[in-house]
């Protein structure tokens, strides 16, 4: 071994350190003003070696991030879904309320129109209760004697006859419906002007009795109040004939009547305060 290499071996630590420091110093010096080709080549070579693991790791991290983001998004979507479901429920309720208000407005508008068109004074009333048994058909109105309501006053809706007031308290009144088994009202077939008695019925709602045997009565005929009996003014719609019965040996024929008013949906009604004028309802209000 030559003396030079022996010297190198003896001071190899210092030689290695000095060499690396000189190389690093030279590299730095070469870039002080402009990057030289050799430095660029070294940098590119290092980057070429180092970039593949970086690329692979970046792809892996991106994959993990995508999965994680997807999971987070899924959770967020689930939470948002729950929130939106809640909102939908609230909005549905709101829509129902608005629809209810719209229907009520329609009903009240019709009542108002009737009020303005009818030749007698009317007061509107809200149905606050229905009969507690299945034996009778009555409803309770929120108007009573304090409002001028009296017994036997007719109660109507824009669709037709509801019934008559049978009991009055200062703040409420009970109305016997047309369909009550013990109610009765004079009826008149609009087409043929045949009269009969409209009575309530458990089975079919209402029937028209005492129609002359030879009278022309047909399905679909409109029946209005006849004005006879002194309770109901003439011309208030009662209903429509749905079936006609002619029993052999009987003196009269009977008919089944579909009331003009849907009693199951009765929410507001009007009390005819002054039923004195017996004529004119047919032409004016209904």
């Amino acid at each position, binding site marked *: 071994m030559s003396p030079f290499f022996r010297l190198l071996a003896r001071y190899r630590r210092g030689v290695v350190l000095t060499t*690396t420091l000189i*190389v690093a110093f030279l590299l730095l010096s070469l870039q002080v003003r402009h990057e030289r080709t050799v430095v660029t080549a070294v940098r590119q070579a290092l980057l070429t070696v180092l970039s593949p693991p970086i690329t692979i790791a970046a792809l892996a991290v991106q994959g993990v991030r995508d999965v994680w983001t997807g999971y987070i998004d899924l959770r967020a979507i689930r939470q948002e879904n729950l929130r939106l479901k809640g909102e939908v429920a609230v909005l549905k309720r709101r829509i129902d309320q608005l629809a209810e208000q719209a229907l009520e407005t329609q009903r009240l508008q019709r009542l108002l129109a009737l009020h303005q068109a009818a030749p007698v004074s009317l007061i509107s009333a809200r149905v606050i209760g229905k009969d507690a048994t299945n034996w009778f058909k009555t409803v309770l109105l929120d108007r009573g004697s304090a409002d001028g309501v009296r017994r036997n006053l007719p109660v109507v809706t824009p669709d037709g006859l509801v019934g008559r007031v049978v009991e009055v308290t200062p703040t409420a009144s009970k109305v016997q419906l047309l369909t009550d088994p013990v109610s009765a009202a004079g009826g008149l077939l609009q087409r043929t002007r045949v009269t009969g008695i409209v009575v309530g019925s458990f089975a079919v709602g209402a029937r028209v009795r005492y129609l002359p045997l030879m009278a022309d009565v047909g399905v679909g005929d409109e029946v209005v109040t006849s004005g006879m009996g002194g309770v109901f003014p003439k011309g208030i719609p009662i209903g429509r004939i749905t079936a006609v019965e002619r029993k052999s040996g009987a003196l009269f024929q009977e008919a089944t009547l579909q009331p003009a008013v849907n009693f199951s949906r009765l929410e507001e009604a009007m009390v005819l305060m002054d039923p004195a004028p017996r004529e004119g309802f047919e032409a004016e209000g209904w």
Partner: protein
Amino acid sequence: MGFWGFAAGLTLCVIGQAVLLPSLGAGALRPDCFLLLVCLLTVRLGPEAATLQGFLIGLCQDALSGGPLGLRAFAYSLLGFAIARLSRNVYTDKPFAQFCFLLGGTTLTGLLTLGLVAFFLEMPPLLPTLLWVIVPEGLVTATFGLLVLWLLRLPQQMTQTR
């Protein structure tokens, strides 16, 4: 640790510094994985190998950074050499001492880098560089280094426990 161990460590370090730490949201206060690698690898090496490995690690960091090539290579060569020379005398298992050594090494490397930058490029403002770069980086790197050391010892501790 042979060549493949060094290559594996360097690859992990490159991935950690260039991909993992940025993707974990580590921003300005990112620990210096390359410096930690120098500390970890050179502590059991002879000064020559430690110097060369420090140089190579620094060169790789320079290649991935926007600074001039050779800046960290210079600093890590000296650091590797110093660690290899001192490790037998100051080797310790105590976390606080390890933290102090890591902090000292990081800070000294930072100061050396500052000097080189001032010599070759332009003198950066001293106090802000100290306060916002060198010291925070030293603290974060030392803390992260302690965590890495603990993780490296964990399998051994678990085996002993069993």
